[in-house]
């Protein structure tokens, strides 16, 4: 049995679902970042596999933009976590509950 584009797309869909579930279920910001990375990389796999399926460079091109932006995003996210960690001993998204009402 040969591996066709469908398999890659399926893999991406599964990765995306794992990422989404993780983001909604887990409460540690670092794990949540990892889940976001999973989701973004699922997007990358989709773009690349469709790009190679259609023989279109646009798919590969899109991945570069996604990669760069994802890197910038994670830097900001880690900076925010560091800022919070300085003020309190542990970080848990459920502890963030000053705001509400």
């Amino acid at each position, binding site marked *: 049995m040969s591996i066709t584009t469908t398999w890659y797309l399926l893999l991406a869909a599964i990765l995306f679902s794992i990422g989404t579930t993780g983001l909604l279920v887990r409460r540690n910001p670092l794990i949540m970042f990892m889940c976001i990375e999973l989701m973004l990389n699922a997007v990358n796999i*989709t773009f690349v596999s469709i790009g190679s399926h259609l023989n279109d460079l646009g798919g590969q091109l899109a991945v570069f933009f996604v990669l760069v932006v994802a890197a910038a995003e994670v830097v900001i996210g880690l900076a925010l976590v560091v*800022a919070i960690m300085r003020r309190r001993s542990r970080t848990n998204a459920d502890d963030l509950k000053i705001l509400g009402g």
Partner: protein
Amino acid sequence: MSTNLLIVAFERPAIDWHAVAPEIVLLSVGVLITLLDILFLEKARPYMAALSGLGILATAIPLLTLGIDGTERVLFDGAYVVDNFSLVLKAIFLLAGYVVILLSTNYIVDGDYWESEYYGLLLASLMGMIMMASSRDLISVFVALELLSIPAYLMVAWRKRDPKSNEAGLKYYLMGVFASAVMLYGMSLLFGVSGTTVLSEIADSIDAGNGSSSVMTLGIVFVVAGFAFKVSAVPFHTWAPDVYEGAPTPVTAFLSVASKAAGFVALLALIFVGFYELSNIWEPLIWILAALSMTVGNLVALRQTNIVRLMAYSGVAQTGFMIAPLAVAGHSLSTGNQALSAIVTYLAIYAAMNLGAFAVIITLARRTGSAEIDSFSGAFHFAPGLTVAMTIFLFSLAGIPPLGGWFAKFEVFRVLATSGETWGYLLAVVAAINSVIALFYYATIARKMWADDPSEKDLNNIEVTPSLVSALAICVLVTLLFGIFPQLVARFTEVSLLAFGV
């Protein structure tokens, strides 16, 4: 041989320098501010706000010349378009950015925080919005969205020694990144079905019969959901109240106006240029978002005691009004164009009245030291001018003639009622009921400010800084002008995206 091939393969696309002049000016000012900050540190600080304000005004000059020129300019094979629609929205963004800078002067630095970087970030975010107005390609929409969001995450968390601000920043970040990941997955699906990222080519591919695929439907749903987050439509609004409360108030004003408008611009470009033909998919989606946003936003706003949270929920409700015309936009081309004009009109007027309301809140909250509505009681006794201004903004938000908000709401109702669709009439009824609910809580604030006794003993008149006076003057002027002479704003917002979309 191989090097030859490489050289032949890359040919720089023709760039219309006039068309991208506003972006280049804004970018240069942003870079200049960052450099000055690095070189002179504290010494440059007093001049930063003025410099970034001047930079925004300088950006408006090429915008004006482009507007006078009036030709539609298409760059990069249709990925970047400068037309009347994008020029009007760029002008709205610039005006909102200018007012936010006026609001931020002297405020951001309170509590010994750095100020210079703030203006650099603000200009970067503004740059993303200005790019968003011209983006007609999935990739450029995505890059513009991130360029406007990433600095905004930092601006929300600006008060780094304030746990509230930290929390707001992290919440906004997590929700924002989640939404953009969902949107991006939707984009990759759209690319998969149509084989292109340019919106007008996606429309061609739908015409060619690719629109019926269920993957296309999924892609559209994901993309619309991603932007529903950005414009804080129910059920993607949960971040808004917390982030608005925790962020420094000028940043809140910026998010509630400029960032929301940017989300709308992208949504409009995607729907009108990209998948206008598939109205059977996005119309019901938008209908639900609009009805839910109006109703939930207004009902929850009724029981808020903090004015910033109240403005957050009222903003959610206003989003419902703004998005409503889209629910019937697919009926016919003329309805589509009317819906587009109505939304752009609403965005322009909403920017003025909401920024104005936040300007008053910033000034009053600094005096009273609290954002509770009760602390504004009797404001008329120590801040008569501000009370009058706030009343104008609140009644405009509620849609009372002859203020700007009235015309904005009127346009929305006109589109809904003349569409000839049952769903349109139903949504108009929902909107009418919600206007009444909204009037109740806006009027309650005004009543407290005018009629109640002040809670503090210090009745000396509040001092308002010159920059806040100018911000208020701009907002009051625009709100009144657009209400009394609606044909003025209608002339500018008579824009169309459908000409080349269909």
